[in-house]
């Protein structure tokens, strides 16, 4: 129990450090690198919740495909657009204090209310086959809905790039 506590303490401090870095760096590529580290750390965090398949999927899909696509579009822009100017905080700065205040308030309220004694999970599902059989036998309709939803990006991609081909721009 105690090594789990120490490990989660280390992870919380790492998350906190990298969120602060994301906020206070000025160049988009450095902010992006901090977010990449956050995604990989979250993948490792899923391992503590007995979700090993989700951990691998998180790293492969998010950190391996989505963020690479983001990096490719970052390099399409010239260098001066990627730099945040000084005096970056907009004129909303007085109302933007609200999310931070809300967070600190919730944090303190949880601490004051007290943590109940035992938080052990009731039944640990670590079997990949059980989850897979649940997905394919009981909730098969989700996969059809997923295929339906994913057809929209495909149609959208075709529509966006159709005009360029007509103009001979391939």
């Amino acid at each position, binding site marked *: 129990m105690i090594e789990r506590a120490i490990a989660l303490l280390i992870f919380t401090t790492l998350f906190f450090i990298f969120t602060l870095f994301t906020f206070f760096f000025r160049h988009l*590529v450095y902010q992006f690198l901090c977010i990449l580290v956050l995604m990989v750390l979250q993948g490792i965090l899923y391992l503590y919740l007995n979700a090993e398949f989700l951990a*691998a999927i998180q790293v492969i899909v998010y950190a*391996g495909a989505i963020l*690479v696509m983001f990096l*490719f579009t970052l390099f399409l822009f010239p260098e001066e657009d990627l730099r945040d100017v000084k005096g970056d905080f907009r004129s909303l700065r007085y109302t933007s204090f609200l999310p931070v205040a809300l967070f600190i308030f919730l944090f303190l309220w949880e601490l004051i209310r007290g943590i109940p004694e035992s938080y052990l999970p009731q039944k640990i599902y670590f079997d*990949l086959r059980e989850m897979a059989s649940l997905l394919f036998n009981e909730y098969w309709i989700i996969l059809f809905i997923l295929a339906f939803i994913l057809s929209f990006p495909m149609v959208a991609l075709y529509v966006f790039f159709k005009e360029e081909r007509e103009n001979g721009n391939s």
Partner: protein
Amino acid sequence: MASNSHLLWDILIILLKIAVVLGIVLLHAAYTVYAERKIIGRMQARLGPTEVGPYGLLQPIADLIKLLFKEDIIPIEAHKFIFQIAPLLVLVFAITNLSVIPFHPSFSIADVNLGVLVILAFAGLGTYGIILAGYSSGSKYSLLGGLRSAAQILSYEIPLGLSLAGVILYAESFRIQDIVEAQAKSLIGMNALPQILGFIVFLICAFAETNRAPFDLPEAESELVAGYITEYSGFRMGIFFLGEYISMYVMSLLISLCYLGGWTLPIWLTSLLPFLKVLPPTLILIIKVYLFIFLFIWVRATFPRYRFDQLMSMSWKVLIPAALLNFIWIALLKWRLLT
């Protein structure tokens, strides 16, 4: 699950395993450079290096000393921090693959339930080192070279995953030990023969994933002046090449474990020639790995290079449909086997 009382002992054993695996694989990677130059030399009707030691055997050591003593140049326009960590990213994500690969039925550094997905994840993370190396060099040509190479690796990861999906479907598990055992029990003894299409797709993707010939457009001397490696000199360039040779070993280990039966021999072979039963399993695996390394070197000496648009169109238009066909074929086979 490791209990608390044996924690120190377990950590010591894991460190020992890491030292053994790293020592052996790094030695192999260093001498593969020598073997490649010798073999390519012989294929081109000339001798390879013969000067340095007996038969040129100390050549890698001479190369290492030369790389270590070169001057470390960082261009002025480079982003210094990213320039320094980019080769390390490539190397780290290539070496970590070795921790989930079993060299023996009971020897692997980390016995996870999802060995194959870990290798796919680290292959996906390895593209970051290349893109960041190209971007942080501060020149437009390096950036373009890095983006091209990353696009190549990304496009060839998809048929890699799909052909592995056929293997996983056949073995009903993600662990590599289970995949090898499922092959040992099957009729032909290897995954290569029922899944010949998947085998060929995986072989081609293995060449493309490691930036080896005939897909080595970023490294060719006449293309964009060596692409993303242009501004790197001395030991940093050595780290890039070390990463490439180690990922070559990881790919050949994966092929021989997933498609050729790993450390087991087919049943019909051992019933024909019963003296083969006394071979240790690791030796069988090593012979298969050497076979594939020889294939890598042989292909480099033989085939011309692909152009970039030919490369991309081959991945998206040829390999992905082939891998999907293979998957459907394996699904039908499995359905017939189970009913």
